[in-house]
């Protein structure tokens, strides 16, 4: 199990509680084995899909076959440490506006697993501590 979790909030949804990203053990093993494609492969897919959503054609949207195949055909980036893999995961799985822009307080934090509360009391009111 990963030593880390990522806590994040969405500034576009201020009423939303803080979210907790839990990495997959299988995915972490792939990252450590050097099996991941460049992060740009995922960004290209996300960009195309977001454009389709914005243009109202998501219901019939299909990825460009070459861009989709790049997920397994693009050259691998090589082995990552667990810390590097978590940074990669932030850029892959957390919406880009959360980590790519500066806000007046942190919108995400990488924390040790044991730092996440061990009970779920007031779960819907969790916030990132200052």
């Amino acid at each position, binding site marked *: 199990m990963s030593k880390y979790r990522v806590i994040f909030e969405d500034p576009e949804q201020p009423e939303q509680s803080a979210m*907790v990203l839990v990495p997959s053990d299988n995915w972490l093993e*792939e990252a450590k084995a050097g099996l991941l494609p460049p992060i740009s492969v995922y960004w290209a897919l996300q960009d195309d*899909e977001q454009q389709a959503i914005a243009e109202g054609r998501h219901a019939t949207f299909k990825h460009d076959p070459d861009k989709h195949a790049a997920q397994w055909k693009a050259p691998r980036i090589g082995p990552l440490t667990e810390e590097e893999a978590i940074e990669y995961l932030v850029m892959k799985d957390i919406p880009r506006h959360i980590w790519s822009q500066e806000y007046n307080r942190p919108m995400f934090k990488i924390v040790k697993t044991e730092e996440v509360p061990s009970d779920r009391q007031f779960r819907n009111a969790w916030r990132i501590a200052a």
Partner: protein
Amino acid sequence: MSTIKASTIQTSAGGAVTLTDLYPAKAWINWQNKTTNVLVASANVSSVADVQVGVFTTNFSTAFSAATYLCAGCSNTNNGTQVPAIGFGTSNGGNTYTTTSIGNAAEDVDAGYTDYINNTILYLA
């Protein structure tokens, strides 16, 4: 009868193979959010985000080619009672449905969104 032994099976172009008349799950999760968050087991999933009580987002390792896949699953309470109440496209943060991620919600008909000891979900295309 022949035996095929291989570590990886791909198409001649290096992509995912098509299995004629077979429709395996493209991804699945066994997710616990009753106490602490634990991704107990999964396939083709890079992470799961705990959004709020009963609501979580699954992020796929390899994106689907189109957002036309289905999800099916059930949740399991502490006493083993099966509650077939996994949904998606819900409000309150579980409203994602893209090729790279999907919002899921586990709902009790009486108590609303609920954290369960196990949420097991298949994603099929």
